Every structure is written in structure tokens, then in C-alpha cells.
């Protein structure tokens, strides 16, 4: 449990004159589930966008499994093993569940270059297995994604990251738009990931959810990290105090 999955040193992002992210030092250990909390505009999503290669950082270092990485784009990050589930889901609406799960990495029966023949059977089977493993309930996997509820779509997106054993999963407010039952379903998937020992960064505004699912809470405020709290040593009120600026951890003093 000591190996470090992700480490950032002095990660900084400026949008023109706006210091959206300032000197963020962050660490994620093997099998750890870390929550990132903070008000809107605190720098949470900016932080994630630097890690997943969606944007180029202004300065700072990102170390992934001990190696410094410079992703040219989200595809680069994905190939390195960082899977992100964003709020605006990256799913093809007109394709069904197996097609979406295997999009860009289809199982092939017969290699003919771009005209390689698809192995639908194997993909369907693997999809069924992935859904069972993550306890995702979808009535008919051959239905186009278009016809599914928000929760089912979210589950498909998450199942995709779980299917390919990514080295790091990042979820940006995965339950923000979901109902009670759908939220519970997504949370169940997160628990399965925890049992499987897969590391996760979860951005959420939902205190109960964070306390339920994560080992550690990192609080962002005005572009800086202001607290790094173990779940056992804190409670909801304490975290809120850090988010609102009533408190700042001594080691981050002077930062905000």
C-alpha cells in the first residue's frame, strides 16, 4: 500500500491572469480512494483537467507511478492508464452498450486492417461479465445508449473504466445529475472498485457520499489545497469549515 500512484508537485494553471490552480502538491497511494472537495471555482476540475491531459499545465510536475508524464491530450492519458468519467459523458448515443464499452479497442475476429471483422459474441460476453462484476443493472445491453436513463448511461461510462483495469480512475461529480437509486448504483460501483484495490479520485459536493466512499479528503479553496484530511480524523462540519475558509491546516498556512 505504499507505492504512490500519482504525485503532483507545484502543479499550477493560469488562465491569462486568473490563477485557477496554484502550487498543488497531491499524492495518491495504491488502492486509495481520495475525494476532492471545494466550492465552485476552487480549482477541482482544473486540477483534474491537468492530470487527464485535457489542458496543458502552466508549470509543475506530474508523476504517474513514479515516472514524470507530459500528456499531449486525453488520449495519451488514457493510454497511460488514466480513465476519467466526466460529467458530459463520452458515449456514442446511437451505439449499444458493448459497442460503447469497446469503442476504439474492439475485439477482432479476423484482422483486415480498418476492415477487421468484429467479434460481437466475445464483446457481448465481456460486457455481461463487466456489468455483473460492477453490479450494473441494465435491462438490455443491445439497446442504444440513447434510450437509457442518465443513471444507466453513467453506469455504462463507469463500467467502461472498470472493464479495462485502468491504473487510475477519476470521476468528476458522477452523481450530480442522478436520482436516489441511480446514485446508489454508482456508489456501489465505486465500492466494487475499492474492493478490487483500484485507486480513485472522486470529485463530489456530496458530503455523505465522500464520507461513505473515500479514505481521504483533499480540500481546495481559491486554487490552492488547504487541507488533507483522513476520514477517521474529521467530520462533515470540519470539512465545511475548510471549504468555506473558516479553517486552514497549519502546513498549508500562508497558502490561501
Amino acid at each position, binding site marked *: 500500500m505504499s507505492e504512490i500512484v500519482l504525485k503532483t508537485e507545484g502543479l499550477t494553471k493560469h488562465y491569462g491572469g486568473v490563477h485557477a490552480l496554484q502550487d498543488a502538491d497531491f499524492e495518491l497511494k495504491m488502492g486509495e480512494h481520495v475525494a476532492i472537495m471545494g466550492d465552485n471555482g476552487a480549482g477541482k476540475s482544473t486540477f483534474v483537467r491537468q492530470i487527464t491531459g485535457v489542458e496543458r499545465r502552466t508549470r509543475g510536475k506530474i508523476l504517474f507511478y513514479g515516472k514524470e508524464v507530459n500528456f499531449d491530450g*486525453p*488520449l495519451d492519458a*488514457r*493510454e497511460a492508464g488514466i480513465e476519467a468519467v466526466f460529467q458530459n*459523458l*463520452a*458515449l*456514442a*448515443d*446511437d*451505439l449499444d452498450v458493448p*459497442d460503447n464499452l469497446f*469503442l*476504439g*479497442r*474492439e475485439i*477482432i475476429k479476423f484482422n*483486415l486492417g*480498418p*476492415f*477487421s*471483422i*468484429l467479434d*460481437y459474441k466475445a464483446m457481448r460476453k465481456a460486457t*455481461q461479465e463487466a*456489468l*455483473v462484476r460492477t*453490479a*450494473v*443493472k*441494465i*435491462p*438490455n*445491453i443491445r*439497446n442504444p445508449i*440513447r*434510450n*437509457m*436513463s442518465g443513471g444507466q448511461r453513467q453506469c455504462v461510462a463507469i463500467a467502461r473504466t472498470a472493464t479495462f483495469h485502468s491504473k487510475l480512475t477519476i470521476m468528476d461529480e458522477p452523481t450530480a445529475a442522478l436520482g436516489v437509486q441511480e446514485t446508489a448504483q454508482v456508489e456501489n460501483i465505486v465500492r466494487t472498485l475499492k474492493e478490487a484495490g483500484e485507486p480513485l479520485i472522486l470529485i463530489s459536493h456530496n458530503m455523505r457520499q465522500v464520507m461513505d466512499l473515500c479514505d481521504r479528503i483533499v480540500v481546495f479553496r481559491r486554487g490552492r489545497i488547504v487541507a488533507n484530511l483522513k476520514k477517521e480524523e474529521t467530520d462533515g462540519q470540519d470539512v465545511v469549515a475548510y471549504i468555506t475558509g473558516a479553517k486552514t491546516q497549519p502546513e498549508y498556512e500562508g497558502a490561501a
Partner: protein
Amino acid sequence: MAETAHGVGGLKYDHSKRARPPEINVLIALVLIVLVFEALGALLMDQSFLFDTRDRFDSIFNKARLKIIILQVAIIGIIALGVTQVIITGGIDLSSGSIVGATAMIAMSFAQVAEVNGSPNPKAIFGPWAMDLPVTVPILVGLACGVIAGGINGVLIAYTKIPPFIATLGMMVSARGVAKWWSKGNPISFPTDEYAAIGAGMTPVFIFIFLAILFHFILKYTVYGKHTYAIGSNEAAARMSGINVARHLVLVYTIAGVLAALAAVVLSAKNLTAQSGMGIMYELDAIAMAVIGGVSLSGGRGSIIGTCLGALIFGVIISGFTFLRLDAFYQEMVKGAIIVGAVVLDQWRQQRNANKS
């Protein structure tokens, strides 16, 4: 109750509520249109549209009319197969008609015979070296024209990010210019017998059917097909999933160009001549076939089967008008209305889908 515990996780799944494939609706439309012409035929012409009503029992259908319907749409149908793929990626190809014109001219000039009735070919384009060449030469030259024109379309759209409408509009004008420039506007005639055989009799229909089956398979069962739908469905998601969208678009537009070129070879072989005005408005007919067949202009949805049914609807309407002895002017008016109607239907379908979820 048609409920079964088929779903993953034991969720109930009602098979009877499954959306029926849109191709069924197109098929129903085709049957309805045939019935309308049957009814009009019985009322106005006192004869049947598709059935053989004369006192011969050797056939149920009016074979001659069926043949004409299929032959009429076969050549534009070949173009429509490529246009279908382009539209599924969310694009449009306005250049196919002009590619037909340019390719017909260029391919035909490599298919000429040296002597016509004992005297030298009066329409000869090149010197004696290009006379009586084996039939593979004009075919390969024609396909190369398609690769170049389609490839330019694809590269423009994929790498300069200009809208497909503009890129292919440019190619439409330029390729027509090539067609006129090639022989300074003169028609090119007198092909070899082997070349003429490509367009003789029902051969165009067989070529169309073969290509339709081939591309149905490719779109449904290959990575190429899957990525084509994925790009039309959500280009950003396709890119995020690791699909090389730019390269794929070049491939799709190149294939569309090649299919237009093939149509040009078949058409010039059928007519035994090539003229710079060949294929004018074919692009719109091909787009109409696809749209009538349920290919969505917003991308992501449609199929080769749908386009083939759309082509049949097209053929039925044209020969239905001829059957009712209506002037060609009316044909064009109604054709325009049908294209608009098909797009309106597509919009309705999408709104209904959006409201459901």
C-alpha cells in the same frame, strides 16, 4: 405479457416494447406507395402497375416494369451507398454527381476503339497508343479518379476542419470543370465491346446488388462500420475513445468517391458515350435515396438496407409517374417534395426520441 427476465442483473425487459428497426417503416412506405399507384392505375388507366394482368400466366408481376425500376436506380444507387456512409458520419457529399461527370470522361477516353466501321475513331481523344486497351485500364483509371477526388474531399474535411458542405461544394464545381476541360466539351464515344459490356443489360443491377451486400456487411460487421457510426453519433466521444477520426473521415470520403467513380464507369458503358454534363443532380438523388431510406442527416443512424429501400421508393415513384403518363415536370416537383418530406420525418423521429428519454 411479453416480459422476460432477460436483462443483466435480472431486470425485467419487455421485448414487445423494443423499438422496431426504422427500415420496417421504410418498407411499409414502399408498399403503400406501390398500392397508391395500383389504385390510381385501376381508377385512371384501367391497368395494373406492378402485376401482370394480361391473360398470360407465365408471370405474376409485370417483369418489364420491375426491371426498369431497378435498372433506373441501380447507377445512382451505387453512389447512394457511398453517400450513406458519409451521411452516417454526420457529413454530406455534394460532389458525387460531378465526380461521375469527370470520371466518365477520363475513363472513357481510355476505353475507345481504334476503328469505327473501317475508319479511324472520329471521337478519339488520345493517339493510337490509347486505343483498344484492355478493359482493366479504363476501370483502374476511373477508380483512381474516384480515389483522388474523394481523397481530396476527405483531407479537406478532416485536416482543415471546413464543413463537409463547403468542401464537397468546391469539389462539385471543380470536378465539373475538369469534365468540361478534358475534351473541351466534346463527347467521347465508341468504347470497346468489353467496356460496353459493363453497362449492358442487367449488369449494372448486379454490380449494384453486389456492392450493396458488400457494404452492408462492412458497415455492420467491421471496425470501419463501427467507427463510422461512432463518429456520426458523438465525434468527441469517438476521439476520446482512441479512434483516429481524421484518418477515418479521409477513408469514408475516399470510398464515397470510388463508388461515384464506379457509377461513372457503369453509366458511360451503358450509354456508350461520355459527356461533360453526365451526372448532374445525381448527388441530390443519391442523398434523397439515403434520407428516404431513414439515414439521419444529423449522423449516427441509417443503414445500407434502408438506402436500398429508399432507392426502390425512388424508382417506383419515377416509373409510377411514367405509368400514369404524367410529364417529367411533375416528377421533379414531387421528387423535391418527397426529399423535404423525408427530412421532416427524420426531424420528427428525433424529437420524439428526445422527448422519450
